[in-house]
C-alpha cells in the first residue's frame, strides 16, 4: 500500500491524526488517547498488518515529550511512523503497546528510564539501565548533572 492509501486508511480509524513532514516515512501525529486502539487495528487489519515495531524512541521536544513508533509490515513491506506527544512534563503517560508488539516491553522501559514517560498497563515498568534510586531522567533536555556531564 502506498503512503497516500495508508494515510487514508489511518484517517478512517483516527480522523484527527495529523501528517508531519518527513521525506522518508509517512509520519502521523496521533492523539495519545487513540494510540492503543490504532495500534491494535494496525496490527490486526489484514491489509495493514504492521507486525514489526522496529523502533520505539522517546524524544524531548522542549515543551513536549513524545514517543515515536516506527512500524513495518513484514508482509506488505510498507512503513509508517506514529508519533504521540504530551505537554505534561511532570507525569507524562501513554498507553503501552507491548501487548501488541512484545518488543515494546524493553523499549518502553528504556523510554521510561531515560524520559520518565510512563506507559499504562506495562507489565514490568522499572528502570532498565539506571539504578532504581536514580534522580531525574537523563535524556530530557532539562536534566542537570553537575558531576557527570562536563561542559566544554
Amino acid at each position, binding site marked *: 500500500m502506498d503512503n497516500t492509501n495508508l494515510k487514508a486508511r489511518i484517517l478512517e480509524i483516527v480522523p484527527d491524526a495529523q501528517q508531519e513532514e518527513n521525506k*522518508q*516515512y509517512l*509520519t502521523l501525529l496521533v492523539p495519545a488517547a487513540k494510540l492503543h486502539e490504532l495500534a491494535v487495528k494496525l496490527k490486526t487489519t489484514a491489509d495493514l498488518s504492521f507486525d514489526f*515495531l*522496529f523502533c520505539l524512541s522517546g*524524544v524531548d521536544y522542549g515543551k513536549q515529550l513524545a514517543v515515536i513508533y*516506527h512500524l513495518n509490515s513484514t508482509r506488505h513491506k510498507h512503513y509508517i511512523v506514529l508519533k504521540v506527544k504530551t505537554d505534561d512534563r511532570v507525569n507524562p503517560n501513554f498507553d503501552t503497546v507491548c501487548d501488541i508488539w512484545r*518488543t515494546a516491553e524493553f523499549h518502553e522501559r528504556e523510554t521510561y528510564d531515560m524520559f520518565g514517560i510512563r506507559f499504562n498497563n506495562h507489565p514490568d515498568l522499572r528502570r*532498565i539501565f539506571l*539504578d532504581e534510586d536514580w534522580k531525574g531522567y537523563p535524556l530530557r533536555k532539562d536534566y542537570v548533572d553537575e558531576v557527570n556531564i562536563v561542559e566544554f
Partner: protein
Amino acid sequence: MKEIVNLPVSKPEEEEYHINMGPQHPSTHGVLRLLVSLQGEIVKNLKPHCGYIHRGIEKMCEKDTYPQIIHLTDRMDYLSSHINNHAVCLLVEKALEIEVPERVQYIRTIMDELTRIQSHQLWWASFGMDLGGLTCFFYGLRDREMILDIWEETTGSRFLQSYNCPGGVMQDIHPNFQKKVHVFLKTFKKKIKDYEKILSGNVIFEQRSKGVGMLTKEDAISYGITGPSGRGSAWSCDIRKTEPYSMYSKVHFNEVLRYECDSYSRYMVRMQEMYESMNIIEQLIDNIPAGDYAARMKAVIKLPAGEYYQRVESARGELGVYVVSDGNKTPYRMKFRTPSFTNLSVLDHLSRDMKIADLVAIGGSLDLVIPDIDR
C-alpha cells in the same frame, strides 16, 4: 541498589530459588546480570538486569558533531564497528543528499562483510566455549586475527576503527589490502571446514542445540528478533535485501533462512552467512573502481531540520539510527535501535522450562554483545 536488597525470597513450597548469573559470569560475555528463578535445574523465570556499562552514548551524541559521533558508535557493538559507523554515515549522507563515490561504496561494503565474518568468527568461538568446547575459542580467535591485521594495515586500528566518516572513509585502502583479503579468503575457506568438523556435525553439539530455544516466526517478529537469530526462525529480515544500501543491491548473495527455529538453526544461519559474506567480498574485491575515497563535505556538517531514520544490517541484526535534527551541527536527539537490546528481550521467553545449560546455549545462540545492549 534497591533491587539487590529486595531480592525475591524463595518460597519453600514452590521449591524455587534464585541465582544471579552475572554481572561476573563466564557465559554472559560481559556485565549482563540475569536473575534466574530455578526449580532444580529448570529455569522458571528470568529477569535480565542491564546497565552495568551504560555510558549514555545517546546523551553524549547530543553534544557531538556528526563526525565526532562516529567514534562513539564504534563502542556500542564493538564487534561490528564498521557497520555502526556505516549506519551513521549513511544517515548523514541521506539527510544531506550526498552521493558518495562508488569506490567508497565498494570499500564500505567489503569492510562491512569483513566485519560480519569476524563477528561471526568470534561468536562461533564464544558459542563453542559456552557449550564447553574450549578449543573452538582459540580457533575462532586465530582466524579472526587475519581480518584484524587487514584492518590494522588499512585503518590503523584493530578493533575500534572509526574508519568511515560522513562522505567517505578516513583514508584510502592500503595497497596491500586486496592481496591480503584474497589470502584471507583462501585460508579461511579451508579453516571453516574445521569449524564444521569440530562443532556443526558433532553429536554432542547437535543434542545440545537442536530443539533448544524454539522461537517461532510470529514470536520473532513480535519480539523484533532480527539478524541471524531472526533468520534462524525463517523470518526474512535481512536489511541488505529489503532496503539495500551501498553495494548490496548490485551483488548477488542469498539471504540465509533456516526453518528449524531452534538454536541449531541460528547457528547454521551464521555459519552459512560467513560463506555468503565471503561470496560478496569475492564479487567486489577485484572490481574496486578508482576514484576519490571521500566525497567533498562542508567543514561543518549541519543536517537540515527534520527526522531521519537509517536501518542497516549489523552482524547481530537490524541497527537503526534515528536522528531528530534542529538544523544545528549537533543532533537534537539521537537514538540507536541496537539489535542486541531487542534480542535480549526474548531470552526470558526462550529459556522458560529449559535447563541452565540450555540457557547458556540460548544466550550464546542469540549472540548478545553487552555494550550493544547498554549503549
